[in-house]
């Protein structure tokens, strides 16, 4: 049998009050808030964040990587390989992109389950300004590692599936806006099949059910026929596409007791269901998860104008500075370990660390004899910093820091996910994988730093 070894969720630090939408556009409603990916985040970088939250030993042992999203950063070119590189998975571990419908959520879960690998589900979800998808959507990622049932927090018991061809929510590849039919139609069209699948399950007061659907009416209807089971409510900060399944499953695991069974149900172009039984190991995981939750940065308010601008719906005047240069393919390829994995070079002879790697050692002058040393999980210390108001950034001002790694190596980075007032000399920072910019149709991925929460 196969089970879940670990599960993590990543939600961006940005949070937008929905009341901003109604006050700008004059629309009604708008209570609560939604999570918003920073300007330098996309589904690839959020997937990296989610995997980096997992137990690193478990990640190293994983035998495959399945990345699901409905908003891939690239088409044709794999995004999973970027995640694979940034999380320094072994080269022989296969990685695949799964998309581009919401059903990719279960596609990746089933594939990762069958191969005892990692499923990472990452999405940005929005729509036309003032519309439901913008208001009810969210940006997030989640990761699950599957492995032997002996080490699992929940053992997978069975999967059920029903594919239904229905035009409910869709988008043309060339468009940025989704369309949907009347929510009531969508919910009711799939209602009967959902009911019959749920009736075939042995639901009791030991059951926890998590429904995931882009259609708000579907989750409402579904909660009807579940008897004494506990139903996981919709996420406070919105529906995050394929990631919603992982976020809801995490919530279920947070309240589960050993012996409970959890049903995770996706309602989208049919019904997908997985049933799992919670083991004794859940208690330890809950403690670990609690600790992870205390290590998150406090949420940060995002202005609606910034959200619109970051999503490409509002163009702003930029400073009179040259456009960023797109990274070139050959140097990105030969420096891939540095660019994606933040892997420095340590001299075999004298131990000097070079970040980025160099061909000739600064310490002893030897040429070519180095071993890799990953810096991505190290803490850095801010040596000095500046706030640059001349440089262009979608979220001004640009904060630049010089960081020492405590091993002799020093490098410069952009700061992200924080206000300039949070940065000071001596501050401890962690590394985060981000999209520096996009130029000439090429995403420039590299690492930035942000303050370490609750240090």
């Amino acid at each position, binding site marked *: 049998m196969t089970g879940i070894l670990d599960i993590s969720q990543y939600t961006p630090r940005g949070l937008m009050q929905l009341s901003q939408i109604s006050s700008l556009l004059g629309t009604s409603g708008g209570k609560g808030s939604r999570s918003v990916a920073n300007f330098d985040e996309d589904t690839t970088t959020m997937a990296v964040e989610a995997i980096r939250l997992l137990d690193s030993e478990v990640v190293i042992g994983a035998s495959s990587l399945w990345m699901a999203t409905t908003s891939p950063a690239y088409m044709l070119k794999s995004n999973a390989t970027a995640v694979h590189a940034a999380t320094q998975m072994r080269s022989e571990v296969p990685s695949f992109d799964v998309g581009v419908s919401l059903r990719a959520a279960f596609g990746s879960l089933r594939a990762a389950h069958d191969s005892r690998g990692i499923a990472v589900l990452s999405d940005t979800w929005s729509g036309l300004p003032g519309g439901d998808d913008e208001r009810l959507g969210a940006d997030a990622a989640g990761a699950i590692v599957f492995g032997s049932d002996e080490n699992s927090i929940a053992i997978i018991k069975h999967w059920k599936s029903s594919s239904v061809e229905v035009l409910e929510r869709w988008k043309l590849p060339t468009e940025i806006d989704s369309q949907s039919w009347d929510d009531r139609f969508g919910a009711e069209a799939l209602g009967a099949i959902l009911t019959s699948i749920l009736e075939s399950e042995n639901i009791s007061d030991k059951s926890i059910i998590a429904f995931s659907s882009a259609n708000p009416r579907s989750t409402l209807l579904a909660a009807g026929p579940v008897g004494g089971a506990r139903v996981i409510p919709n996420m406070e900060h919105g529906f995050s596409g394929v990631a919603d399944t992982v976020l809801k499953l995490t919530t279920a695991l947070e309240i589960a007791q050993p012996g409970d069974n959890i049903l995770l149900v996706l309602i989208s172009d049919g019904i997908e269901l997985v049933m799992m039984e919670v083991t004794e190991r859940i208690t330890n995981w809950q403690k670990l998860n609690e600790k992870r939750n205390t290590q998150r940065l406090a949420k940060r308010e995002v202005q609606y104008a910034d959200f619109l601008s970051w999503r490409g719906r509002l163009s702003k005047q930029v400073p009179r500075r040259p456009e960023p240069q797109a990274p070139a393919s050959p140097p990105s390829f030969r*420096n891939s370990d540095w660019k994606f994995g933040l892997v420095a070079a340590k001299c075999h002879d004298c131990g000097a660390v070079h970040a980025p790697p160099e061909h000739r050692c600064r310490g002893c002058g030897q040429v070519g004899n180095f071993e890799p040393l990953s810096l991505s999980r190290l803490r850095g210390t801010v040596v000095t910093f500046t*706030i640059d108001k001349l440089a262009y950034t979608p979220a001004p001002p640009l904060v630049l820091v010089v960081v020492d790694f405590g091993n002799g190596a020093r*490098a410069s980075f952009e700061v992200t996910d924080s206000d300039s007032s949070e940065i000071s000399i001596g501050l401890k920072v962690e590394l985060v994988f981000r999209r520096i910019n996009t130029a000439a149709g090429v995403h420039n991925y590299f690492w930035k730093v942000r303050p370490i929460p609750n240090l």
Partner: protein
Amino acid sequence: MSSNGFKDRVAIVAMGCTKFKDHWDKSADDLVVDAVEECITQTNGRIELKDVDAYWVGTQGSGMAGVTVSRPLHVSAPVTRIENYCATGSDSLRNAAYAVGSGAYDMVMAVGVEKLKDSPYSGLTAAWPPADGTRVDWTAPASFSLLAPAYAKKFGLDNETMREVLTHIAWKSHQNGALNSRAQFRKGVSKETINRSPQIAGQLGVFDCSGVSDGSAAAIVVRAEDAYKYTDTPMFVKALSLVSGTGAGLRVSDYDFTSFPEVEASAVEAYRQAGVSNPRSEISFAEVHDCFTPTELVLMEDLGFSERGMAWRDVLDGVFDLGGALPINPDGGLKSFGHPIGASGLRMLFECWLQFSGNAGERQLENPNLGLTHNLGGQPGECVSFVSIVGNNLG
């Protein structure tokens, strides 16, 4: 570092320098022609363009190859194009001087030119080779702004004092520039205006930064023994030094952003060549690379004009003012001239030329005999530094 020195082997016998400003009506070619024309004209027929055996032209991005000067001047001659960050203009002179000193040529010309205002950008830009996208894109003000907090912290200056020091440097340079008809900015600026200027990077406001302008300058170099054939007031080269750094400051954990090791090394080398043992008292005046106000502050220590940690005091005491013990940037510096990269190093030498020939007008210093020029490119932690020492007498 060892070098064989270069004292009194060559001399500059003519110089030209355009106004530095927004030359909307002039191209880089036009500016080169104007600077060279002034240079030749002042020799009163003693030198013609055809007498020049070879050329070195410094430009960061306003031309490629030697044709940058051979085409506008209509000369067919050996021309070498030099690029060495913001020390480009100085390095063209350095290489030209070596060519005469080696005996390869009798008379050469160094030309520097930059046409920046045909681009719409704020600040300086550069075309970098294709790369992997992992290098942080420091703008110049951002990278040099790191000096101010580091210096203040190390030497215990509070924010107010540091501001006062930086403001004094900008104020002094604009006072000097107001006396210079070739400067881009020709008005004194009040300390209140400097203090209140909009922030650019870190603690740096607009008035802590040098401007962007167009300009060109040129110098004719001959063997020292031939110098008096062409002018009564030759300027003898006492020292030329250039240090290109290892970049360790941005890569290794032992650099503290309160000095430029490259500048210190290039200064030590230049003083050795020129036989200067006490720069503060022996140097009459200096033209230094004041790209940003904290740069000038730190340079005072790296060039040995102030003790470590004491330059801020000397600045406030007026030591470096036009009437002070050691005038710095009497022509107004990059602050008043802007920074047309290829031309700046030669513009600094042009002020030395004027001072030694008694043609510096209201800025004229009393009996100067040794001048120093300093030109810096790159950023704190990874830079190129040039120092020259020139004088009006042999020996």
